[in-house]
């Protein structure tokens, strides 16, 4: 008790702010060695800091002070506990703007303290409301230029923070927080937020200190703005996330230990706001080496997906590849690398790049596809070069009649086959550009080949080629029309290519379903088929009806008349 009051009275007599400084350094106590050692490593932290700071550093380095303050803290805790236990719940839930501490000692200093705190807290409610335009808030979340005063001040603050935060991680040294489960300041920002992990009692109560806009209380003692930042942005991870969600500018530089960083990330993930999660990840990307960050992202699925998305969006392919590699996501890695070929415009370079892709860890089936892609482009380059030459010199008739509209480079396989059926149909299998060669090399199914060849030859109106596509000869030498796709589909394709009725007729006749046959025949105006079908089904009525569609002088009219006059037919109607 004594040490505490002595230490404090010295400060409070002079300023309010220094009190806050030392109050905030109370939470350092659980792990003074950490704070001290970091302070030693960064001597520059203390030097530019204004008046109050050296004092606090000084007392920090003084072991006797530690002891005293520790004692004071314990005493304080005990007092509070005994007093507040009974109606604790009600009290902490109802009194909105009261501190977690109650300092009702007779001691002069305490009374003064109590008053000042009360005052400060009552204004902090006001201050918090209009803190949108409060200069104090406007600290770049991404940090000031390194080496500036505000930067170093923040460095100082971050030295102070980690030890406090580490309570939440349950470091062995901390004994205070578990014994004070209810010790949350109701006013603390974290209580506004439905937090899963409540911040330790001492911590948040003094957070309301640090939130205190002290200048309202003692404006004449206002310190340079930059200095407020460190006290005021001295938020817990939870509060930091909340502030960020409200669109306020916060500083993340304080979160230096890995535990703090990960706590911050986890809080961000709990907040379900991708914007914030990404912001934290950007900070982590800057302040952690890749290996550590990647390692920590394993098992943090949401954060990981945000990170991957961010890397994709910002075009950091190298980092992304490293990440996939570190995670053992080899297929993702391979696909990402493969995708790079799309950015290469020169076909030879693209082919060479695809060749390097062949060794990538694709799944077995994908690896075959990539192999095909490479082979295809290789062939296309050869075909393109050759055909350009042929077209230019005008050696080939088909190129003259149907000049190429575009190059065949980078076209899909089926398009290439179509092209080859169009321009190189009769070539022997030995040439790269022959349809047979393409079909064999890429192991195309009969149906794929058939449909493509049909479309190409029909486009050229090479009806004999079309016909021979269907013709199979059995061992006795009989020919038969066969198709791997329904004849209806064949008709569709032929019709689209303006096949003449004579050609269509052949395939309409091959339809087995009578109704479909009649429909198709009507659609394509295959009169002979219709007449013959009605004759075969002995449907006089339909035939008579159909006859009316023609002129008396037309051949169809005559043909129908002939059929109708045929006495051999026994009409069904």
């Amino acid at each position, binding site marked *: 008790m004594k040490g505490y009051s002595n230490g404090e009275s010295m400060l409070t007599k002079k300023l309010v702010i220094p009190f806050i400084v030392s109050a905030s350094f109370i939470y350092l106590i659980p792990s003074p060695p950490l704070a001290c050692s970091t302070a030693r490593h960064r001597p520059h932290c203390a030097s530019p800091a204004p008046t109050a700071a050296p004092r606090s550093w000084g007392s920090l380095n003084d072991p006797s002070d530690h002891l005293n303050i520790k004692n004071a803290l314990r005493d304080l805790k005990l007092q509070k506990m005994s007093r507040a236990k009974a109606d604790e719940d009600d009290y902490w839930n109802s009194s909105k703007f009261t501190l977690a501490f109650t300092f009702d000692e007779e001691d002069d200093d305490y009374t003064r303290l109590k008053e000042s705190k009360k005052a400060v807290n009552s204004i902090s409610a006001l201050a918090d409301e209009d803190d949108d335009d409060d200069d104090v808030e406007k600290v770049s979340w991404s940090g000031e230029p390194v080496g500036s005063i505000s930067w170093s001040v923040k460095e100082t603050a971050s030295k102070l923070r980690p030890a406090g935060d580490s309570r939440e991680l349950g470091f062995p040294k901390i004994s205070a927080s578990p014994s004070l489960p209810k010790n949350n300041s109701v006013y603390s920002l974290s209580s506004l937020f439905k937090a899963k992990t409540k911040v330790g009692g001492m911590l948040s109560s003094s957070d309301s200190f640090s939130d205190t806009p002290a200048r309202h209380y003692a404006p004449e003692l206002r310190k340079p703005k930059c200095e407020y930042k460190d006290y005021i942005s001295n938020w817990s991870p939870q509060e930091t996330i909340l502030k960020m969600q409200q669109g306020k500018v916060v500083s993340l530089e304080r979160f230096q230990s890995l535990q703090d960083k990960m706590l911050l990330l986890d809080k961000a993930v709990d907040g379900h706001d991708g914007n914030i999660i990404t912001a934290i990840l950007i900070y982590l990307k800057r302040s952690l080496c890749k290996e550590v960050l990647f390692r920590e992202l394993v098992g943090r699925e949401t954060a990981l997906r945000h990170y991957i998305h961010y890397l994709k969006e910002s075009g950091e392919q190298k980092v992304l590849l490293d990440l996939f590699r570190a995670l053992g996501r080899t297929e993702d890695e391979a696909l990402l690398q493969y995708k790079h070929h799309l950015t290469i415009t020169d076909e030879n370079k693209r082919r060479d790049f695809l060749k390097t892709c062949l060794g990538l860890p694709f799944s077995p089936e994908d690896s075959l596809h990539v192999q*095909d892609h490479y082979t295809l482009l290789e062939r296309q380059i050869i075909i393109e070069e050759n055909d350009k030459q042929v077209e230019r010199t005008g050696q080939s008739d088909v190129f003259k009649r149907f000049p190429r509209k575009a190059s065949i480079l980078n076209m899909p396989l089926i398009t290439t086959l179509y092209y080859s059926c169009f321009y190189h149909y009769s070539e022997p299998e030995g040439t790269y550009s022959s349809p047979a060669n393409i079909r064999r090399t890429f192991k195309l199914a009969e149906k794929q080949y058939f449909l493509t060849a049909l479309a190409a030859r029909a486009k050229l109106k090479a009806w004999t080629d079309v016909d021979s596509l269907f013709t199979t000869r059995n061992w006795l030498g009989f020919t038969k029309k066969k198709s791997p796709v329904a004849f209806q589909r064949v008709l569709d394709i032929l019709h689209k290519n303006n096949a003449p009725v004579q050609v269509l007729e052949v395939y309409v006749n091959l339809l087995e379903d009578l109704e479909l046959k009649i429909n198709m025949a009507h659609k394509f105006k295959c009169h002979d088929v219709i007449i013959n079908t009605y004759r075969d089904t002995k449907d006089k009525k339909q035939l008579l009806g159909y006859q009316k569609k023609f002129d008396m002088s037309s051949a169809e009219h005559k043909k129908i008349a002939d059929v109708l006059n045929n006495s051999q037919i026994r009409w069904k109607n």
Partner: protein
Amino acid sequence: MSPHATRRVFTSKGQTDGCSPPLSLIPMAQSIRRDSPELPDFSLLKRLARDQLIYLLEQLPGRKDLFIDADLMSPLDRIANVSTLKQHEVDKLYKVEYKPIVSTSDQLCFLIRPRLQSVKWICDVVNADKAAGKFRRYKLIFTPQKFYACENVLEEQGIFGDVTTDEWGFHLLPLDDDIISLELPEFFRDYFLDGNQRWVRTAGCVLHLLHSLYGPFSKVYGIGRCSKMAYESWREQVEEGEQKGRDGEIGSVFLFDRDVDYVTPMCSQVVYEGLVDDIFRIKCGCVEFGPEVTSSDKSLKVMLNSQDKVFNQIRNEHFSNVFGFLSQKAKNLQTAYDKRCGMDIKQIKTFVSEELKGLKQEHRLLSLHIGASESMMKKKTKQEFQELLKTEHSLLEGFDIRECITFIEEHINRQCSMIESLRLLCLLSLTENGLLSKDYKSMKAQYLQSYGVDHLPTFANLKQLGILVEQPTGETLTAMENKVGKLVNDRAAGKLTDAFSSLAKKSHFRALSRRLNLVLERDGWTGLEEVTRLLNGQEFAASGCSEADGKARSDTQRTILVMFLGGCTFSEISALRFLGKEKGYKFIIVTTAITNSARLIEALLDNRA
């Protein structure tokens, strides 16, 4: 007139529970049906957005050039016009094209979505100016919000501080009386494919905005993880700000994640509005009809909403009914015109002053929609479309699967529409709980052969999303059922959809959002707890903040806000309108964007650099 009368009958009966009486008590559904309540006035949202934009423009006083993100142009058009911008000293307007700029103005304003690419481009612009020694003032307005990642780009590119940034909270664009859109098509890919939650808070903001303008809501229901997060985000925002107590205009709120049902949006749309969207692409409530529709040499941009009286009558109808309706309408119009024969001078004068304008307007609209129908008929009565519909139908019913596969294969082999082929594959996978391994491999290979191996990453995306997958092999059915429990549930819901459809004698309403329908079927809105139990995990139901009572309440209770996270289709909207009409509810649809099968598939493509 009559709607009000009927409603009064009901409210006087004092039915405040918001439940329909048991069906058995209803002698004739038609005669006793309650009318849907009036909708809240959402034009307020437009005014708010416009005022805020003007305020932001005035923050950069003086003449300035404005660069607008391409996909913000249409939404902007709907709330402000060029003269509004000119009034606030916008000199020239440019589209963001990621190219060097030609502007000579010394003040540049950028109105963009928070995308890194746009911000990087702006950085290039600023740095180019710096290099050229040109001094300008720059202002970036992000809408609906800025992201830290964007500011990070500004910082990295060394122009943080050289530009000012602002946020334009243009969250909601009312597309029609009952449709409000966030106009965020990227929501779908960002959240459902990439697992990025950056729009979750935006969704929460939207709820907050609607809540503070038209709330308080009485109950909030949701299905899906994103819905839950959006709900929580909204609750947080409500807690941050004070809520003034007043009578709400909206009763219950339903939140749906798009991934709850992918089957419906993967189907061809058959209601008029949906079909227009599938074929001509409705953009921001506006469609461009080409010369083939207008039967003139130029194309025409037309707003499609309830203001268009003709459209309003056919938008929710099955396409096959539309033609008959339109021709009847044309006949009526003719009769109305013919009236003027045999009129005396005075009558003609009244006719001209009172009726002619309306008739002319109707005439214009009618010929437009007839033109559109004809054009669609031409495309859709083709044999192919019939076959396509048949295949979809078979897939939904689960029969003739081999035939369907053959059809899809040929579709791919013939290099028909790349998007359509992928859509059919997804539909096959969704309805069959994945493809057999050999089918998957063979179809994927054929697809890559027809449309390019570049699509490999697209297949990875579809797999990631779970809409085009291989059936896991070697697992027992029960284990698999567990794994794809969601889909199994969907099928059950699908059955209900069908049952509902036939009940309603509107077989074309198969496009109902299945889950929603399940909820509605169990309905009275009371059996809902049971439903939420039925659907495991991600579902929630929560009471809202206030309990209004009396007459106001019964109307409010029947105004239901349905929010789709990840987009919804016009078919789904039609289905909701239909249900609303049947049951006396009024649905307000809030969606992150209007979508359809093609847009969904396009969002998942990954064959571009």
